[in-house]
């Protein structure tokens, strides 16, 4: 599903069907040890509403936010942003995981809201801030579109 760009704040959404029960998938969203098997190199994630977390997603790049909603094994919502990035500061965007059972399988719907719009990023920032904005989109499984940072040069 492409990222929605008509709104001022960008929304990215993506779904994937997993051949596992929601209970199994849920553990991979909230258990730090299982979380790190598919995302990040270090995390302080704790499955408790109000708990702050700090996840080193790629070396030197840290995502920071707070758990907002927890409804095992159906729904997980947390705020999300990059440490040291004024465009997507810690806690500035919202990530939501919904687990929808389909027989013995689980449809995972990932929604990332309140991302800075591509326009707002390009108005006042070039370079890495621009990249981190793109990252925020692809982090949610969205399509950030052509990279103006690269295409403008050529």
């Amino acid at each position: 599903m492409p990222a929605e760009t008509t709104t001022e704040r960008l929304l990215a959404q993506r779904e994937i069907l997993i051949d596992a029960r929601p209970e199994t998938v849920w553990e991979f969203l909230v258990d730090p040890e299982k979380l790190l098997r598919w995302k990040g190199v270090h995390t302080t994630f704790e499955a408790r509403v109000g708990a702050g977390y700090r996840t080193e997603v790629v070396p030197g790049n840290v995502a920071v936010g707070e758990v907002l909603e927890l409804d095992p094994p159906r729904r997980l919502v947390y705020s999300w942003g990059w440490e040291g990035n004024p465009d997507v500061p810690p806690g500035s965007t919202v990530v939501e995981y919904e687990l929808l059972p389909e027989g013995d399988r689980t449809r995972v719907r990932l929604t990332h809201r309140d991302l800075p719009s591509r326009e707002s990023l390009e108005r006042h920032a070039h370079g890495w801030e621009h990249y981190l904005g793109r990252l925020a989109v692809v982090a949610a499984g969205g399509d950030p579109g052509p990279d103006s940072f690269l295409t403008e040069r050529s």
Partner: protein
Amino acid sequence: MEAALKAIAEPRRRAILRLVRDDELSAGEIASHFDVTRPAVSQHLTVLKEAGLVDERRNGTRRLYRARPDGLAELRRFLDELWGGQLEALKREAEREEKHARGNDD
């Protein structure tokens, strides 16, 4: 790739990259944009250079710096792949776990 990731993790180095994206600048010109010492800027430039994100060119006694598009493109490819594959990675790990659990149930 880890060197490039660490290089762009520092806000001032990202600002330097932005400065030299379209213009080739000397260390002094770059330093004039920041409230930090010249040696600190040189240190940042060294990190960016070693990470392959910036090219250095000598012009007489001056050293000039410019962003290296190839380095940035490599970085972007790496990150796009990493993030794009994230949900697929979740699927792989959860299915492996489920298979293991179902195997134990039998």
